[in-house]
């Protein structure tokens, strides 16, 4: 009997036991003798200059080793380019401790290194800093008039600018039968993974370091450290086996990495720098964004004109961009479109991708405007989407590699009971609660980047696969093991996947929902190459039962190579290794996306979200009582971990629509609710029934696995569906997130 394919099976996380029992070690938990602890001092002003820096009182404390600041830091790389990481937007990357200039509130200005964390933290309060303050501005809404087009650069490749206008939007809009418009306001959000950012740098002597870092890209950090500190890449090893959530916050090297490595190199000792929760608000964030929409349709419901404009915050030093306004025309056909995306540079740190960056922002505007238009037309919101169903990507004219969105609508609506909906707002009630049904569509591009993977068969005939990729809690370890197992028809137990180490085969940063496509495809390619190599070696063995067979004539199963036509003619993988004098047989492959084929297609995962809310009629209290998300994302490698991903996105949707916001006091230019007591993410009492459907979707084009990423798609549709359900319940269209009870009183 041959082993069942592992792909497609619901398999629990392989590292689950370590994680829930606390034995999984995170970056800030690697202890070595004589470890030193660094605590960061952050700027208390928003803009200006340090006039005077005095650390005497801190240094006078026994056990305080050194206080680094711009005045005594070691000399570092000269060029800005050397600070640019794989995810750096166009501009000048932030350089910690560069000079006396203060660019934003909370900027790291010094590192206190001491014999304990507590001592370092206390000593940090004794550091005296005099500033010259300059006027600053952090308020997007007050500065929208100064919005300008973003600069382009390398990172723009993954974030295409808005599509060119089509037709004549203004004329079409003016004369259309039905119109809907809206202004959508989103504030700042911070990622706030549970694990605090931390780096432990072990000084190995002679310019060599081993670094345990919280990151979404070991190689990204390795290159950054090598460039900035002028070290040989081979002397910099970055390890990150467990990551306690990141959501994009670890896509770029954060300042604790820089400071930890700098201190370790200077002091020639092991140094750990751990940020505290307040400091988790002192780097990247989802940028506040204001959007304007105008959509118009003919009497039969067909869309005629789409205008979507977004104005987003960025820093003064980098042009961070998101794909906010490109989605409407990928989803809906219209002959007249006008999309614009602009930036307002402010005195803040550069924004940073946060789960479903741009998509969760833009689709709220698109899908709530679609909803408003459906009410104008008197057409059921779901019916309205079906009338405007795009068989191809209208923004490029290319076909989709696959698109089973229609099935998402059908299966989602059936599971939810959409047909029970009464069309009029405020028409459904339960006691003193208004009940509302809302739905929305989601889309997220299915990307793939180049990556390497290594596969080998060891003396026991077991498969060992490795890649530098991280597992940010998404289930990467489990899923990659499944993919690897199937390449040689092995049981999961006969496969080990090693990862999270820059010395392993190259992988890009883990984000954008492209990891399975990127690293999974590389593993599949490496597995296939290894299979061919094993086959060749097997044929060369004495008395090989494979005779003159071609590769197509054999199958790999149960640790054997077998002739398909003669199932008894087998040869064990471990015997092939024995014949190889016991030396493991291995293959390392660089896998490139099939660009020539792919460029003829648009590739995207789709989803449909259906939401029921209850709103207390007098008090405005909102509860999402039920929600269904139906997802079309190609082959689902592991339904269990995939479902968890979507559930996480659904909880986050509730967060985004109803809870989460970083509050900025523009008088001080700083964030005020910098802790998890006041930065509201949902609690159990906020979460009720959530249901996930994966619809069948076959895709032979998108990549070797036929699988699209699912990290972001769970957060694409549902925030808008919540806002739409609230409109249905109350008759109030609230376009500012998060929606609070006082908006509905």
């Amino acid at each position: 009997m041959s082993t069942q394919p592992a792909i497609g099976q619901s398999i629990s996380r392989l590292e689950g036991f370590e994680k829930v029992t606390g034995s999984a070690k995170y970056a800030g938990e690697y202890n070595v003798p004589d470890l030193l602890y660094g605590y960061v001092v952050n700027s208390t002003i928003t803009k200006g200059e340090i006039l005077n820096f005095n650390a005497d009182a801190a240094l006078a404390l026994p056990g305080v080793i050194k206080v680094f600041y711009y005045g005594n830091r070691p000399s570092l790389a000269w060029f800005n380019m050397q600070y640019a990481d794989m995810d750096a937007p166009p501009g000048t990357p932030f350089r910690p401790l560069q000079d006396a200039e203060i660019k934003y509130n909370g900027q790291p200005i010094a590192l206190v290194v001491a014999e304990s964390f507590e001592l370092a933290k206390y000593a940090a309060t004794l550091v005296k800093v005099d500033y010259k303050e300059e006027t600053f501005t952090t308020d997007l809404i007050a500065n929208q008039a100064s919005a300008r087009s973003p600069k382009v650069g390398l990172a723009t490749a993954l974030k295409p600018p808005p599509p060119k206008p089509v037709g004549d939007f203004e004329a079409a809009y003016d004369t259309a039968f039905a119109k809907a418009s809206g202004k959508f306001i989103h504030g700042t959000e911070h990622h706030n993974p549970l694990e605090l950012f931390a780096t432990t740098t072990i000084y190995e002597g002679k310019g060599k370091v081993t670094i345990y870092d919280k990151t979404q890209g070991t190689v990204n950090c390795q290159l950054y450290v090598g460039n900035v500190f002028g070290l040989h890449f081979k002397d910099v090893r970055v390890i990150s086996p467990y990551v306690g959530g990141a959501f994009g916050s670890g896509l770029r090297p954060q300042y604790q990495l820089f400071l930890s490595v700098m201190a370790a190199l200077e002091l020639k000792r092991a140094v750990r720098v751990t940020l505290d929760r307040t400091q988790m608000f002192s780097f990247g964030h989802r940028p506040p964004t204001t959007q304007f929409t105008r959509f118009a349709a003919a009497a039969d419901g067909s869309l005629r004109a789409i205008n979507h404009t977004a104005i987003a915050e960025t820093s003064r030093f980098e042009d961070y961009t998101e794909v906010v306004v490109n989605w409407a025309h990928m989803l809906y056909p219209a002959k007249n479109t006008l999309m614009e995306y602009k930036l307002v540079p402010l005195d803040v740190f550069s924004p940073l991708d946060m789960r479903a960056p741009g998509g969760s922002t833009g689709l709220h505007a698109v899908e709530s405007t679609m909803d408003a238009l459906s009410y104008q037309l008197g057409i059921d919101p779901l019916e309205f989407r079906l009338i405007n169903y795009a068989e191809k990507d209208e923004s490029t004219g290319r076909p989709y590699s696959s698109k089973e969105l229609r099935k998402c609508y059908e299966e989602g609506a059936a599971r939810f009971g959409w047909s029970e909906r009464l069309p009029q707002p405020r028409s459904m009630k339960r006691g003193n609660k208004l009940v509302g049904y809302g739905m929305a569509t989601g889309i997220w591009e299915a990307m793939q980047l180049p990556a390497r993977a290594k596969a080998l068969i060891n003396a026991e005939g077991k498969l060992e696969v490795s890649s530098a990729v991280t597992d940010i809690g998404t289930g990467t370890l489990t899923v990659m093991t499944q993919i690897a197992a199937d390449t040689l028809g092995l049981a999961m137990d006969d496969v080990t996947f090693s990862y999270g180490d820059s010395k392993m085969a190259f992988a890009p940063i883990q984000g954008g929902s492209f990891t399975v496509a990127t690293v999974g495809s590389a593993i599949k390619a490496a597995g296939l190459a290894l299979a061919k190599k094993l086959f060749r070696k097997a044929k060369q063995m004495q008395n090989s039962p494979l005779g003159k067979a071609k590769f197509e004539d054999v199958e790999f199963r149960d640790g054997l190579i077998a002739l398909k036509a003669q199932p008894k003619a087998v040869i064990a993988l471990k015997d092939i290794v024995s014949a190889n004098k016991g030396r493991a047989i291995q293959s390392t492959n660089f896998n490139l996306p099939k660009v020539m084929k792919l460029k003829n297609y648009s590739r995207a995962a789709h989803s449909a979200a259906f939401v029921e809310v209850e709103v207390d009629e007098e008090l405005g209290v909102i509860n999402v009582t039920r929600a269904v998300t139906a997802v079309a994302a190609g082959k689902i490698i592991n339904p269990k971990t995939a479902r968890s991903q979507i559930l996480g996105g659904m909880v986050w949707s509730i967060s985004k629509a109803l809870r989460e916001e970083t509050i900025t006091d523009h008088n001080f230019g700083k964030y005020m609710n910098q802790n998890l007591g006041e930065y509201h993410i949902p609690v159990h009492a906020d979460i009720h029934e959530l249901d996930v459907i994966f619809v069948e979707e076959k895709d032979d084009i998108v990549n070797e696995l036929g699988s699209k990423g699912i990290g972001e798609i769970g957060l694409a549709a549902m925030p808008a569906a919540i806002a739409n359900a609230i409109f249905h319940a109350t008759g109030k269209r609230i376009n500012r997130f998060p929606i609070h009870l006082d908006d509905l009183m």
Partner: protein
Amino acid sequence: MHNFRYKAATSVSDAVVEVNQSAEGQFVAGGTNVLDLMKYFVAKPEVLVDVNPLNSLPVVSEYKEGVRLSAFATNADTAYHPIIEKRYPLLSKAILAGASAQIRNMATNGGNLLQRTRCYYFYDVNTPCNKREPGTGCSAIRGYNRMMAIMGTSEHCIAVFPSDMCVALAALGAVVNTDGMQGKREIPFADFHRLPGDHPEKDNNLLAGELITGIDLPAEGFAEHYAYLKLRDRNSYAFALVSVAVVFRLDGDLISEARIALGGIAHKPWRVLDAELYLQGKSATVDHFAAAAEIILQGAKTFEFNSFKPELARRAIIRCCKMALSPDTQLPGAQPSA
């Protein structure tokens, strides 16, 4: 956190003596507030006197016609105590509407009365705050003030006292027992907390180094008609935007006694006796509840981000009065009734 001395108290008098040995002495009980304040460098006690060893008294004991709560018992043990659940269910509901299960397991009754405001600026030593540093100014008045007070504010401070438990204690008419260098005192609840006035740095009328030893509840627990309603930005683990405690004694359709206390709107639990007197002898109708709400909220003053609060409070009072008529409609977590 800066360096401090730690001393475990051996008796009430020992605790009082120890804490008064230093101008910067402070008690610690559950530590759920004072340790956070120390981590933010808002509190910098020179000595922390731990009162947990004094937790040998019963959580709840019969006292006169009513009961006495130990100051050193936890909020959880108090809320789930059978006598409290049976005779003072309002108190139980209010405690359970606060914080999280983990925090309530640590937090004590004495500490709850003395928790500091949650004003963002108070916790951020890099912004001006009259409560933290008198004379520096109030950042909240022109800042982000969604959570801030609408009643009894002063030009120096608009902070809110955040406790849920104390809203119920105010409605029930509790008495706070204290012991200190000047001897024992019994402080009626209405006189315990203060308005900010010219001295926002003082939250209450406790003397320096005075220890809370117990909280007395009068005989009447209003177990027939009571409700606690808490409105907030998430369903649990968030402080009140507005909370309301209502208790009634009814005589047929008529209200023979009413108490209405509000949280989240002032520097102390907010009771307006005129409104309670107004309801006395009236029928329990929405119109009368609405008229009482008007009386309570007269003179409300709002700020940029909390202008919704008077109307929210008005509606909350009416709803909570309705809920108090049939306490069985109450949902866990002091949610609005279905």
